[in-house]
């Protein structure tokens, strides 16, 4: 028996309001695991034209769980949104925790595939195998919190899990997110805008079903072993629960790769005041865990009458050091608005940072700005920006296009700190070369969670690599990217990887699915998924030239701190990486490579 999967895929065409239920393709499931991998395979089968406009009616958007999602496996909370991203036209896989993914499984589906465009706002309600398209005209214009509450009220059940868009998604902001559990985001790549273009306001799910486990007694032992590892690991048992992800602020800043003022500097003098440690002291009410998560890195914070979650490390950085804003309360407030209006925090802050640099250098004029000065350090601009962007009001309309299009419109794309048009996260790669390689090669554009090289290069986990060495980084980055593809496809949270390795994921997958993978086979599946995404991007028109980073990082020496003088030697790193991947010099998978991956 195959466990883990419900065996059912829900297909909804919004144009003709057609709803179908299809059996899961088990061969695909074995080959691509689930979540990110399996959904990418389905997506490419359905949307054959890789050059399609992401907002075209024929584009599809998929909400996919993994075989471990909703099982008692540690941190089995994830679902993945796969589509063509509106921010950058690359394959978008955006994942989120909370409780939505597990609930979708309990309601009977591994995946929801949405195609077409509705002629009025709608939302999808799924309850224990029954599916209904409901009018959402009254929800259109509402924020993600109001939408969630209103759906709970009208369906009379506040246990319903809601993944929805806010005004940002409706107004096709390039970096609109999909928000579930009010504060959990499938944030990156503009998946919220694709949902908005389909006039799909929300997916609401409720389920009481059970997920089958192929080897029940084996699973009990495997689970015990993995939970023990998580409980005995200082990172997953102490660091993350005590301080959340923002514990990184001081580590990254002390080592001189904490991007400051749009990556102009590598250290910020106020880091300690706006860090995980100070957040715990001043604003933390309690921790919050996603489904079945023993780590509980989530933060419930309180600020006056604002009950918020976070900010997480990336969000905290992007709204503080990257903008030189020292007012912690304003950062918490702006982070709250981003969740409420449905904006990706990293791209939000990155876009504002680029705008501030363009303003200070005289390219953006006061006359364009409706009285808000876009100077670094201006906290007023930070708290006003989410609303202006989400509703595309005034200058917010330009910011809603993301940093790359904004900076290009002034003739200076070099001020956009992005890769493949997606804003970079909170690590300056001039202080961690492998991580720079990861930014440049991430299939969804600038991103830290496709192969988190900060872990070995800076944190020393699972082993310490010299961050400023080139040798071996290609193969290591490849290995991390492939393993991440496995984790994202299984339905677990990536943070489990601070305590677990490939063998552990194999054990969990085998006990739950009964597939009997070897560790080599799951790593091969990860590599297959990576190459599939790469093929998509190449078909969509990306080339080797897009595996690039802003000249600030590859040409301008770091001006300060312990990495002073360093530039990222990206060309050499890329050569090494293509070789490790078995790709040709143009970064294309060779015929032999594709054959060996059964693609």
């Amino acid at each position, binding site marked *: 028996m195959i466990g883990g999967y419900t065996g059912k895929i829900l297909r909804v065409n919004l144009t003709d309001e057609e709803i179908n239920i299809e059996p899961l393709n088990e061969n695909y499931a074995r080959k691509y695991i689930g979540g990110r991998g399996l959904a990418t395979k389905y997506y490419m089968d359905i949307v054959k034209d890789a050059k399609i406009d992401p907002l075209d009616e024929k584009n599809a958007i998929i909400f996919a769980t993994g075989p471990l999602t909703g099982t008692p496996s540690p941190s089995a909370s994830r679902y993945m949104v796969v589509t063509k991203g509106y921010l950058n036209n690359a394959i978008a896989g955006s994942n989120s925790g909370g409780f939505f993914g597990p609930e979708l499984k309990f309601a009977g589906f591994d995946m929801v595939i949405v195609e077409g465009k509705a002629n009025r706002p709608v939302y999808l309600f799924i309850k224990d195998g029954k599916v209904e398209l409901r009018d959402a005209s009254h929800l259109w214009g509402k924020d993600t919190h109001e939408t969630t509450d209103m759906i709970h009220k009208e369906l009379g059940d506040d246990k319903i899990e809601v993944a929805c868009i806010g005004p940002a998604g409706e107004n096709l902001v390039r970096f609109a997110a999909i928000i579930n559990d009010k504060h959990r985001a499938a944030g990156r790549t503009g998946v919220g805008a694709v949902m908005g273009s389909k006039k799909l306001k929300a997916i609401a799910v409720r389920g009481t079903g059970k997920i089958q486990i192929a080897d029940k007694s084996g699973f009990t032992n495997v689970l015990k072993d993995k939970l023990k590892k998580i409980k005995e690991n200082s990172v997953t048992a102490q660091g993350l629960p005590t301080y959340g992800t923002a514990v990184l602020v001081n580590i990254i800043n002390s080592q001189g790769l904490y991007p400051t003022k749009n990556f102009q500097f590598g250290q910020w003098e106020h880091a300690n005041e706006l860090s995980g440690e100070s957040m715990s002291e001043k604003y933390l009410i309690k921790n919050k865990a996603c489904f079945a998560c023993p780590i509980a890195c989530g933060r419930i914070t309180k600020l006056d009458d604002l009950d918020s979650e976070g900010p997480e490390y990336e969000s905290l950085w992007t709204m503080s050091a990257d903008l030189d804003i020292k007012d912690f309360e304003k950062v918490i407030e702006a982070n709250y608005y981003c969740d409420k209006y449905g904006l990706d925090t990293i791209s939000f802050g990155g876009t504002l940072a680029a705008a501030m640099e363009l303003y200070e250098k005289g390219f953006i004029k006061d006359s364009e700005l409706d009285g808000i000065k876009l100077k670094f350090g201006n906290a007023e601009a930070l708290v006003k920006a989410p609303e202006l962007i989400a509703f595309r009001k005034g200058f917010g309309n330009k910011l809603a296009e993301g940093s790359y299009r904004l900076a290009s419109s002034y003739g200076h794309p070099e001020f956009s700190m992005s890769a493949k048009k997606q804003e970079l996260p909170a690590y300056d790669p001039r202080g961690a070369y492998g991580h720079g390689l990861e930014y440049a090669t991430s299939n969804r554009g600038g991103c830290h969670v496709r192969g988190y090289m900060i872990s070995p290069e800076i944190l020393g986990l699972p082993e310490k690599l*010299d961050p400023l060495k080139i040798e071996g980084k290609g193969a290591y980055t490849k290995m991390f990217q492939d393993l991440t593809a496995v984790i994202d496809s299984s339905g677990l949270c990536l943070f489990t990887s601070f305590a677990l390795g490939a063998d552990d994921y194999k054990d969990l997958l085998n006990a739950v699915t009964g597939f009997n993978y070897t560790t080599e086979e799951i790593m091969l599946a990860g590599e297959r998924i990576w190459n599939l995404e790469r093929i998509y991007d190449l078909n969509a028109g990306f080339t080797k030239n897009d595996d690039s980073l802003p000249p600030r990082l590859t040409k301008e020496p770091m001006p300060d701190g312990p990495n002073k003088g360093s530039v990222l030697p990206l060309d050499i790193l890329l050569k090494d990486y293509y070789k490790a991947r078995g790709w040709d010099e143009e970064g294309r998978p060779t015929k032999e490579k594709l054959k060996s991956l059964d693609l």
Partner: protein
Amino acid sequence: MIVKYFATLRKITGVQEENINAKTVGELLEIIEGKYGKEFHDSIFSGENFKKGVIILKNGKNVIYLDNLNTKLEDNDIVSIFPPVAGG
């Protein structure tokens, strides 16, 4: 020199930073352990070696790329000590 403590270490030391003088990183850690005892030792060491993920920086440089415990210290250096932590 200034010694800075981070994350869970602050719960043990009760201070974020303090002035301690020592000639090497090894000597410095001995002084700190003398002050804060076994709890501090166990946060940093596993047996003789640093725990996986422990980071000790001299002026922002990881001491494992300098001379590890034998890394020389001067009066105006800043030493930062982190227990194993991560995020993302």
